[in-house]
């Protein structure tokens, strides 16, 4: 084995392969930084170039791209609160808070260091177990997958914020949103309202981007400051690296979690960061700072999501099962190179496997080094006033959302969910809880149904199932205890009085539950049982919430309203919500008429001149420059932009079309 490892190492460093690896890393960084552009797209762009390369170079190129995307997508997550891809949803929670406190450089450097170690540990684990992993992977059946999904759901208690009841309601709303589309059990369409877009379910990235990013951008605009609320940036990249080293055991454990969850196809990519985050909260003694800028909340998901890449190669290489979207394209690329993953490859071509593992490790090193170097300068962005930054963020946000399924549905639903999320944020309904519910909805329903079909009660004879069940119980219990503590700590909160909007929000939640029950009533029992199991308790809880609010009282944790003035009686907000939503909606309407490319020109010009206070000439120069840059990018990468009415009527030349 050592000999084969050494041989594979030399193969990468002999000839041009290492150059391809570096090229792949750089391309991966560019693609990873663009939010909404995961590894899938990055690798797909490469496929035509892969054909004809020698296998080592081709693998190095593809692995290079794949390995660093989960590293680079941290930039948007930390700097602007937009998850760059599904792997960095949880990073947003504390990373973005740190950026607000002027510590973006530190958060980024810590994240990259954690990514690096996560990636390396993932590669080591992959090396160690690739030849014996088959029984491990096979011992996780649908029952165990169900328990992993349940474990994810039990994290809700840890992420619930102040009001547990609101946390539950939010996660149930997420579960209901995840039920839109074809039922996994009975071949029926559920809550699709005969809308083609909904029949495939709402894409994950539409929800992830809209519930985090839209409220944050609107919030920034209302405050009229920069992302960093401190005028001076503190905490250098060196602090971040030190943070990572100080928490090395946390990183190690999360890398282990990441590798394991990555090995289990079907659940993997979208929950691993939440499980790691939950683990970090659970295993820490002082939990108060999580969600308010605790560096461990950045380290844990970043370590896990990079280690996951190594883990997801296990099913890919042994079973030919892609563990994520990116590995699906990787499989395609391997066929073009004449490399055939599968049991035979593990047995007879272990060299190739080691080439892949080395590429993964080296790519992680190069990627993390480049990112750490960029962390400090790029974090200066958080000092720019939002009036100058916001128009670009909005343009980017719409582009990123549109990449989900490249349809107008993405934008319309993102806008609607984003507006709803603004009120969730205001009244203390935790958005991460909604996200977890959404991510796990299908996994819970499918695995529950399949477990009942495949195993029945005999699933309780399976040891791993029972162990996971126990961990779920402990997590849930830990979450409840944490809440109790927080409620005690919240004793000195200012008195809050319920206002009509709060009642309206709770009523809306009840209404959504009734809505779901009503529109699934005609399905077969397999099709609507899961909806009922979620929607009925959600209705009951919403009613309970209203009752508790009506009792009012001091220090009621159900009464959160962050729009109310704090201690000194001055609200931090300088303006209302709808003005800013108007700008975003305005851009969408313009894009619906003129197409995205022309619309962003008009939007940037108007926003910069009217809102940011630039002169019309300068605004025009900036808008023109952005348009030119976007055309160039779209020419090189074949990007897809939303089409408008004029594109439907006339046949327009590039870049208008």
């Amino acid at each position, binding site marked *: 084995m050592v000999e084969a490892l050494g041989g594979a190492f030399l193969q990468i460093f002999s000839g041009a392969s290492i150059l391809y690896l570096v090229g792949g890393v750089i391309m991966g960084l560019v693609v990873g930084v663009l939010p909404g552009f995961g590894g*899938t*797209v990055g*690798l*797909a762009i490469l*496929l*035509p170039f892969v*054909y004809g390369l020698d296998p080592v170079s081709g693998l190095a190129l593809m692995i290079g791209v794949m390995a660093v995307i989960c590293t680079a997508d941290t930039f948007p997550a930390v700097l602007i609160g937009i998850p760059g891809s599904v792997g960095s949803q949880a990073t947003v929670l504390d990373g973005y808070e740190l950026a607000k406190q002027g510590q973006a450089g530190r958060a980024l450097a810590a994240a990259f260091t954690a990514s690096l170690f996560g990636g390396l540990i993932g590669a080591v684990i992959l090396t160690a177990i690739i030849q014996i992993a088959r029984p491990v*992977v*096979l011992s996780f*059946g*649908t029952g165990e997958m169900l328990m992993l999904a349940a474990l994810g759901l039990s994290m809700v208690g840890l992420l619930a914020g102040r009001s547990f009841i609101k946390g539950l309601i939010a996660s149930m709303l997420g579960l209901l949103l995840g039920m839109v589309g*074809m*039922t*996994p*059990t*009975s*071949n*029926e369409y559920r809550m699709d309202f*005969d809308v*083609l*877009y909904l*029949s*495939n379910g709402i894409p994950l990235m539409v929800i992830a981007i809209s519930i985090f990013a839209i409220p944050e951008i609107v919030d920034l605009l209302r405050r009229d400051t920069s992302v960093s609320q401190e005028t001076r940036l503190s905490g250098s990249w060196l602090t971040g690296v030190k943070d990572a080293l100080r928490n090395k055991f946390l990183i190690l454990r999360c890398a282990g979690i990441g590798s394991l969850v990555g090995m289990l*196809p*079907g659940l993997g990519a979208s929950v691993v960061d939440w499980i790691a985050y939950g683990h970090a909260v659970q295993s820490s003694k002082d939990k108060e700072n999580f969600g308010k800028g605790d560096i461990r909340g950045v380290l844990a998901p970043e370590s896990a999501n990079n280690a996951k890449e190594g883990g997801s190669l296990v*099913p890919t290489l042994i*079973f*030919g*099962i*892609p563990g994520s*979207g*990116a590995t*699906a*394209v990787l*499989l*395609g690329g391997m*066929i*073009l190179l*004449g490399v*055939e*993953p*599968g*049991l*035979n490859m593990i*047995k007879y071509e272990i060299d190739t496997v080691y080439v892949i593992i080395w590429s993964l490790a080296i790519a992680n090193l190069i990627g993390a080094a480049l990112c750490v170097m960029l962390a400090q300068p790029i974090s200066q962005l958080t000092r720019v006033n939002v009036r100058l930054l916001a128009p670009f963020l909005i343009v980017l946000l719409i582009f990123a959302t549109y990449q989900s*399924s*490249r*349809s*107008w*549905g993405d934008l319309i639903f993102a806008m609607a969910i984003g507006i709803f999320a603004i009120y969730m944020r205001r009244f203390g309904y935790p958005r991460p809880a909604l996200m977890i519910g959404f991510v796990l909805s299908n996994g819970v*329903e*499918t695995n529950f*149904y*399949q477990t009942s*079909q*495949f*195993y029945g009660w005999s699933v309780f004879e399976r040891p791993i199932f029972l162990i996971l069940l126990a961990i779920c119980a402990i997590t849930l219990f830990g979450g409840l205890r944490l809440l109790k503590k927080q409620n005690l700590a919240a004793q000195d909160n200012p008195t809050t009085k319920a206002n009509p909007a709060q009642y309206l929000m709770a009523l809306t939640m009840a209404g959504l539950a009734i809505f779901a029950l009503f529109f699934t009533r005609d399905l*077969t029992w397999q099709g609507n049982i899961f909806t009922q199991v979620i929607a009925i308790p959600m209705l009951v809880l919403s009613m309970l919430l209203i009752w508790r609010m009506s009792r009012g009282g001091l220090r009621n944790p159900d009464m959160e309203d962050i729009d109310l003035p704090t201690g000194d009686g001055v609200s931090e907000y300088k303006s209302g919500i709808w003005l800013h939503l108007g700008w975003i909606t305005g851009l969408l309407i313009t894009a619906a008429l003129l197409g995205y490319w022309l619309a962003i020109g008009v939007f940037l010009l108007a926003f910069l001149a009217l809102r940011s206070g630039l002169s019309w000439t300068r605004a025009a120069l900036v808008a023109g420059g952005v348009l030119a840059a976007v055309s160039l990018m779209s020419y090189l990468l*074949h990007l*897809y932009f939303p089409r408008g009415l004029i594109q439907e009527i006339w046949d327009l030349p590039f870049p208008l079309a």
Partner: protein
Amino acid sequence: MKKLMSAAFACALLLPTVASAADYTDKTIEFWVPFKEGGGTDTWARALQPFIAEKLPGKPDVIIVNETTGGAIGGSNEFHRRMKPGGEMIFGTTGSVQFPFLLGDKRVRYDYADWAPVLASPIGGMVYLRTDSGVKSVDDFATLKDMKLVFGSQAISTLDLVPLLAFEMLGLDVQAVFGMKSRALTRQAIQRNEVNIDYQTTPTYLKHVVPLVEEGEMVPFMSLGALQADGSIGRDPTFPDVPSFPEVYEKVHGKKPSGPAWDSWKAFFTAGYGTQKFIVLPKSSDQDVIDTYRAAMKEVAEDPRAQKILKDELGNYEIIVGDQVVQAMKDATEVPEEAQAWITNWLKEKYNFSN
């Protein structure tokens, strides 16, 4: 042989004059695929992409457009709505575009009658069992018939319909468990003994199940079959030693399959496997555009490098090009009326599925 050579030579001499009918110098061809990057059809299109670019007159750029507005159906609707004649927009379809069309899904707005096919790629499928089932070959059919079989499926309206209908026609007691995310995961489920009967398309069977067969864990049972030159369905050339479904049917029932169930099976087999993937142009294109494409695709099909990639990816089947491809698409997209009624009823009764 000599005659053939000289004929080929003559063709080669003639070719430039024929092909100059349409020229794509400095043009960009949009090759639309109604799937995201990384799916089977996307990978297939990207594998063909450089060869199409090379063989078309004028060596145009070929780019893949992944149109995914509303999934495979939505993407296909979108191509159908926006397509323009002239050969600068071509479309890659697959079984999961053919099936909703055949099943009369109300979300379908595209119509195969508006498309002219220029290439078709067949694929096959293999049904296999766990060795501990005790079934070694089709001779042990009686054992299999007494067993409680569990089969994992993505959904009834997918390519899984074909093996499920085959099981029904053989009178097997099969419980279909839906909601599997991919065939790759059912392959894992059978290794865990969660399901005990499974099928895989040819390439994945060769890569991932054959090693298990060699280890003695799995045993092949029947192939779905392959389209023969005369239009019938017979033994799959990739699996010369394993009987095909029509053969097993004949052995079990003592007669050749016939009737509306068989007609339905045949239509869906053809649409999902026999000619699974097509490249089509808008039918409103000029005839010389279509001819230019058919000639180019013929060259693609004859290029040994392209052959190797396609065989690795799809199995040992001849790509269908030339005039044959027209009949192939007719077979894959038209179901006799009686068979259509039969399948609609079967899906409703057995799986509560209707469009």
